[in-house]
């Protein structure tokens, strides 16, 4: 047993509880442990969606670009759709966002987006959100496709980052990869702490 102790640390631990009640600062990106940024974006069917529409509910937000090899990895293999199906069945809302600007890779107009949703067998709660201006993507700090965010019913971000721990573009690795999103959702739906709340999102850059 070490006899040395830092004089301040024991007290620190005691008062830390007090301080946890105090709210943290609000940031321009979606940061785990903090309130999710507001957004208001139209989907391909012409309906508007904002964060407040999902108050009191679980929400997953996913960034999408149909021409990105990493998106193809997870859609071509059916991995993303099976996640969407599994969790929307558990009353989790799932929004898939396209932030590609007009003229950039991945941009879709509403009619094309409806087609792509169909051809991709998209299992999100609504057809793609079309964030052509990039306002929502930038508010969330979405860097790559796919970039995943999980928001709890209190409107706080519980996970931000990659879909899994393998940044290979090869769909064959999905089987042996550890899926961060399902791990985070499974834990938090049971009221448990998220094992890993943040990771480096891999993939293609979002084409703002």
């Amino acid at each position, binding site marked *: 047993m070490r006899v040395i102790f830092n*004089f301040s640390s024991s007290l620190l631990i005691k008062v830390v509880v007090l301080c946890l009640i105090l709210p943290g600062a609000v940031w321009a990106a979606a940061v785990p442990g903090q309130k999710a940024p507001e957004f208001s974006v139209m989907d391909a069917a012409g309906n508007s969606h904002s964060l407040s529409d999902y108050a009191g509910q679980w929400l997953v937000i996913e960034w999408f670009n149909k021409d990105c*090899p990493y998106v193809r990895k997870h859609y071509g293999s059916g991995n993303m759709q099976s996640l969407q199906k599994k969790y929307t069945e558990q009353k989790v809302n799932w929004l898939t966002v396209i932030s590609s600007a007009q003229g950039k890779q991945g941009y879709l107009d509403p009619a094309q987006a409806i087609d792509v949703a169909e051809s991709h067998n998209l299992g999100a709660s609504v057809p793609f959100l079309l964030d052509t201006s990039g306002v929502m993507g930038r508010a969330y700090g979405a860097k790559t496709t796919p970039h995943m965010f999980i928001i709890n019913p209190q409107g706080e971000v519980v996970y931000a980052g990659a879909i899994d721990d393998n940044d290979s573009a090869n769909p064959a690795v999905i089987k042996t990869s550890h899926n961060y999103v399902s791990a985070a959702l499974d834990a938090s739906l049971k009221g448990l702490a998220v094992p890993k709340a943040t990771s480096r999102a891999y993939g293609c850059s979002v084409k703002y």
Partner: protein
Amino acid sequence: MKIKTILINVSCLLLLAAGQSVAQEMASGDHVQVRWLVPDTFHEGKEERVGFYFEVDPGWHVYWRNAGDSGAAPRFNLVPKGAALGPIEWPFPMRLRVEHLTNLGYSGNVAYLFQLLPDKNTREITISADLEWLVCKVDCVPGFATMSFTRPVEAQAAWPDADLSVRNYFANRLPRKGSESPWQPVSISPRGSDYLVLQLTAMNDGEIPAVFPINGELFSAAEPEIQHQDGSLLYSFKRLPGAGVGNISDFVVADSSRSWKINAPFLSEMAGKESTTSVWLLFLVAFIGGALLNLMPCVFPVLSIKLFGLINGGTSPAHRLRESFLYSAGILLTFLALGLVLLLLRWGGLAVGWGFQLQSPVVVLVLIILFWLMALSFSGFFEFGHRLMGIAGSNSRGSFITGVLAVFVAAPCTGPFMGAALGAAIVIPPLQALLIFLGLGLGLAAPFILICASPALLNRMPAPGPWMEKLRQFLAFPLYATVIWLLWVLGHLAGDSGWLIGLSLLLITTLAIWLGKSFATKGVIGGLICVVAASLISLPVIRVEDSERSSGMVNNWHSYDKTLLAEALENGQSVFIDYTAAWCITCQVNKTLVLDTPEVQALFRENNVLLIRADWTRYDPEITQALQALGRSSVPVYAWYPAGEKKPELLPPLLQESLIAALFSSQLTVNSEDD
């Protein structure tokens, strides 16, 4: 030799003709061609560095091990036959701005290398590789390939000239050992919750190296903001939102052609953690630290004098409350002013710490005269209280000035709790840092306000009477003692001339008072002229002596020397560092009662501890930085490196012999468990 070359050439031609094998020696994908960089023959039993050469179309890029904001590092799955392989080695990258993101990689051709050691008695080596890569401009294209080669093992290695020079060029760009780096890491510490600051020692020629974080889960790849700070370089890396501080803090430091892999110790102390948890917590700690300061020998006399002065005056509750608020205002404004000065100095690139005001001989000189005046006044030599400054009286300016004074005299007595809070004040954003200073001030003021505001508490204080006059006269003596101590500090700062100038000014001050008392108005004017003249002459003369640290040893203690410390740690020797200053009373108490006693010295000797005394009496950037790396900005700090440990434990600011003894008894237990 020639025959062999011809044979090889012929066999190559045959291979080319075969087509199939050639396809295995090269691979191509969109915008990139990959081929082996290997010798024609390997040298028996000798390690060889080989690799893959990626030839990339102009404008396109491939990635480093940490790809940055997007993208992915290439993957190599290698299966050797007849050789053992080392891990993939990555030449240092460059930052590639791709629209709103930053990637780490190579714009143009690059070789990914690895070491190959032929097995004993093997005649042939075959390596097959599964490759995956990503090549990007703005859009990205992944590539996959299988490649292999077979080469004979001979008495000598033979390289195609062109390939050897490509190999050598990139091998030169591989990170070397951190210990050889011209830029050495000091620490990595959080700045607010958004940034992590890496501190490197700067080289003299002022070259600023590029620094690449290996951990992409914690550091953003974006170009860090770089500041020069007095002998060091500060790299502020943006932190990935919400990423917890892990322990992986490896970086690659690169000049234009070479690179080194360094590992910076995370600021182990609480300064880091606190600033990420909550500034309110720090505020609370600062408040408690400030409150405890009231009990310190530096502050207690000043405070008690003021308090008794108030009781003496038979004052009304409302008046007392007003006084206490003025006193608090004095404290708070002084703390804020000092905090602002500290932050401004830092912002200007100067490494300073708490207590910096006592590193200035002018401030010390002013304090000497102030305490001298107070002491004379308490002794009854003249009425100083009501008329001039009202230190012991009850007029408003007096209360305010007592507050100002309390802060100044408190600095030497940095108490428990203050260390952590002040340490954190360095690394967190300015406004939050000021909040910490405010916390300290409020803590210092709180007991006084409480006593003044509460009649119940006040009633418990002894009733006013003639005894107060005696007490006041008695309290003059601690003040005289303070003057002696401050003169000693001045002596440390400015050498012998410090003593001479200090004492001469005291003489002139006393003469001035006598003149003022004896010759009414004319005398006052004469006195003032004396003091002003003396000050004008002495202030420019007095300056900090040559700030070179004396090197060598004083009673078993080595003076602070980074190399000495690094050597001892490298050799696994235990080290005890005493960060101290002449103006720090707590330090002197610990030194006399614990550290320099024969018993403790014997303990240190028996356990072969390297003793280092880092004297911070004068401004010293190296010691300031060392303190900063420990998350502290004030003394005393006692850093203990147990044998074989490279990270210190910080001991409490109030030492006891038993505590030092415990360092070794616990070490013994650990050792016996190891056996």
